[in-house]
């Protein structure tokens, strides 16, 4: 598997709180993408961070990438109820098409 020990994790938080989710990967990657999947929908990309970047921000989102530890994190500040979803990290490299997805983190944001 591309991924380290990982089960579908679940986090429950209140609106306004910040949340951080992590993923680790085993094999070489040149890019980590974070996707969000809302119930009954397909995944939608939130942010892409390349191996030569340590941090990437987009609005309330912040992604980090540590290639030495082969890990990435996604933080959401000031969560909203509409942030309720499953969040996936996905890796890609120069040697294969398609993305390799982790199992995801289910985030539930309560008003």
């Amino acid at each position, binding site marked *: 598997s591309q991924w380290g020990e990982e089960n*579908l994790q679940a986090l429950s938080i209140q609106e306004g709180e910040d949340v951080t989710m992590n993923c680790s990967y085993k094999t070489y990657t*040149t*890019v980590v*993408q974070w996707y969000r999947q809302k119930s*009954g*929908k*397909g*995944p*939608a*990309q939130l942010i*892409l961070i390349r191996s030569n970047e340590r941090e990437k921000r987009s609005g309330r989102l912040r992604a980090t990438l540590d290639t030495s530890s082969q890990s990435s994190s996604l933080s959401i500040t000031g969560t909203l109820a509409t942030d309720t979803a499953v969040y*996936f990290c*996905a890796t*890609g*490299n*120069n*040697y*294969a*098409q*398609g*993305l*390799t*997805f*982790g*199992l*995801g983190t289910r985030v539930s944001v309560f008003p």
Partner: protein
Amino acid sequence: EAAVTQSPRNKVAVTGGKVTLSCNQTNNHNNMYWYRQDTGHGLRLIHYSYGAGSTEKGDIPDGYKASRPSQENFSLILELATPSQTSVYFCASGDAPLNQDTQYFGPGTRLLVL
């Protein structure tokens, strides 16, 4: 905004029957993908395509065929459906070479094989 549509959205099939899942994208993307999503496994790549006429095997191609007759359309074919192929199937498209950029996903097809 990228637009990927899938049909049907829901399908019930019998074991041993043939199932065809269709995907259409209006973004003129070269690359298209089929994934399945199962609890405990996340999204797994079945087949992908670099353009019209091309199909490549992904990580779990057994029991599936793919067809890319045009830039816009990419089909997934289950010649002899089995209950283990009950899943949610997602099509995606993208235009960057070698998996370096955003993939745009369709809404999914829920398949139940009885």
